[in-house]
């Protein structure tokens, strides 16, 4: 890459430090913060997943909520049928992945705006199907999911560990993809799909793989979310707002980078908390404006800023000016 990239150990170190910070919240912070940490871990997993199709491959997918919602329902229905919780999460992962593979073969023929609109359509279609299929999904009334025993504090800690685990696996997959033949091919597709095809990249296959990988852990996260909350309904599970927020988190940090989605999700959720607490009436509007400004002025995301240059310039500024010759 022409741009200076972080070394492998730096990426791991940064991620490990952040994971430790999130995991230790029950020890040093309020319950509210610990619940926020669960949410951050979950959204980081979603943003890292989106990054595989939206960042690496350059296909602006809004299908995150479709995979997440499918995971919610697959996990919940499996658990209600008596499947043990971890196995239900595994089923949800596979269902979301298989769905994405089948769907990808169709919608990945579309490009740019058309793909974006197609992927939004998928979320709506899923929501309508789940809402209407009363006999199987409970329809608009939603579904109760068997709760974990042991009081809210224990449950919160268990799900903090689970979501952090899902986040870590997604990060590991991202690192592996980034360094592999697959990641190289996806970058080629992102920069010039026709040229990628011409130099021997099987573009259709690579896109379907990226789309499938981007769905797998959304499915796991959805199922774990359903188990955590104990109740799901179609509107919350297939939320368009989620499909928009997750890409924004990724873009905020830096799409197509390994750490971008992690940084972006943290930044986004902390901003959201600050505005929520300070401006009860206008928080959404302010958040929207901040997002527009950030994406306009930081097209490469927070990681795209030349921090090194800023540092050098700052140091130069601090030095006394040379005497004029």
């Amino acid at each position, binding site marked *: 890459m022409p741009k200076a990239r972080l070394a492998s150990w730096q990426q791991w170190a940064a991620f490990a430090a952040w994971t430790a910070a999130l995991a230790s919240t029950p020890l040093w912070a309020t319950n509210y913060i610990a619940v926020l940490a669960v949410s951050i871990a979950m959204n980081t997993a979603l943003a890292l997943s989106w990054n595989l199709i939206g960042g690496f491959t350059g296909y602006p997918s809004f299908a995150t909520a479709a995979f997440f919602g499918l995971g919610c329902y697959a996990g919940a229905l499996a658990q209600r049928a008596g499947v043990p919780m971890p196995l239900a999460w595994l089923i949800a992962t596979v269902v979301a992945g298989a769905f994405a593979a089948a769907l990808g073969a169709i919608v990945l023929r579309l490009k740019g705006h058309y793909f974006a609109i197609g992927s939004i359509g998928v979320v709506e279609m899923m929501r309508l199907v789940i809402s209407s299929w009363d006999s199987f999904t409970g329809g608009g009334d939603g579904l109760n999911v068997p709760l974990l025993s042991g009081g809210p504090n224990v449950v919160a800690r268990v799900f903090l560990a689970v979501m952090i685990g899902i986040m870590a696996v997604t990060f590991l997959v991202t690192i592996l993809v980034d360094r592999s*033949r697959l990641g190289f*091919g996806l970058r080629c597709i992102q920069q010039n799909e026709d040229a990628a095809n*011409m130099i*021997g990249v099987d573009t259709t296959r690579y896109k379907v793989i990226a789309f499938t990988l981007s769905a797998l852990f959304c499915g796991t996260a959805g199922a774990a979310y359903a188990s955590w909350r104990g109740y799901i309904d179609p509107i919350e599970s297939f939320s368009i707002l989620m499909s928009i927020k997750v890409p924004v988190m990724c873009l905020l940090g830096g799409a197509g980078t390994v750490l971008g989605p992690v940084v972006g999700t943290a930044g986004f959720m902390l901003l959201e908390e600050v505005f929520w607490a300070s401006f009860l009436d206008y928080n959404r509007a302010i958040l929207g404006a901040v997002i527009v400004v950030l994406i306009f002025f930081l097209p490469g995301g927070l990681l795209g800023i030349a921090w090194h240059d800023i540092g050098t310039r700052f140091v130069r500024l601090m030095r006394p000016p040379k005497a004029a010759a």
Partner: protein
Amino acid sequence: MSATVLVADRLSHRFGGIQAVNDVSFALAEGEIVALIGPNGAGKTTLVNLMTGVHRPQSGRIRFGGVDVTAQRPFEAARRGLARTFQIVQPFPRMSVVENVAAAALFGGARSGVAEAMDAAREELAFTGLAADADRPAASLTLAGRKRLELAKSLAMAPKVLLLDEVNAGLNASEIDGALDLIRRIAARGVTILVIEHLMKVVLSLATRVLVLHHGQLIAEGSAAEIVADERVIEAYLGRKYAQRATAEKFRG
């Protein structure tokens, strides 16, 4: 005569009301440099697109190394050793020059890993004279540099046949001389080459054989000297004045 590597057998392709390629047949023998000339809109690029799987011919067959490849897709053509360059260059703009070539070596040249592909890419950059630009972003190259990059990419795929679509268009005289030299050196590696070209200077100095396309049809085929004297080619493409000058030059010696 050596073995034929690439055969086009009665290819036809139509876009809406336009018969872009009409019943074209030709064969390339191993190690040849063949020029494909013809006026704008004659169907030259469409023909290359048919040969490399960008479009599937509506009728006719293509054989490559004895295998029927009519239904191939572009990435399959690349992996088989049938590489092409684009008239309008197609780099991966935000990758470095060496990464561009490494991508071609990895996917088209069947290199086993990214590191090996990077090594192969550096060799091709040295061959094409781009070694000094290896770590620059591809988008920062001059037009001549980007044309060379296209060549380096296609070479990294270890092609048996190379289809060059106007690699000299837009270059100045000295850049063209450099490109000519490069094409000769590629041919010396044993690569069979089909060049689409408008510059007769290039055609005459490179090609062992010339194909002339007009309104989608192959109207003449022969050595450069025969083509320059061919009435149909003069009428359709070269023009009276050029033919007279070329003949006069020949008589002057």
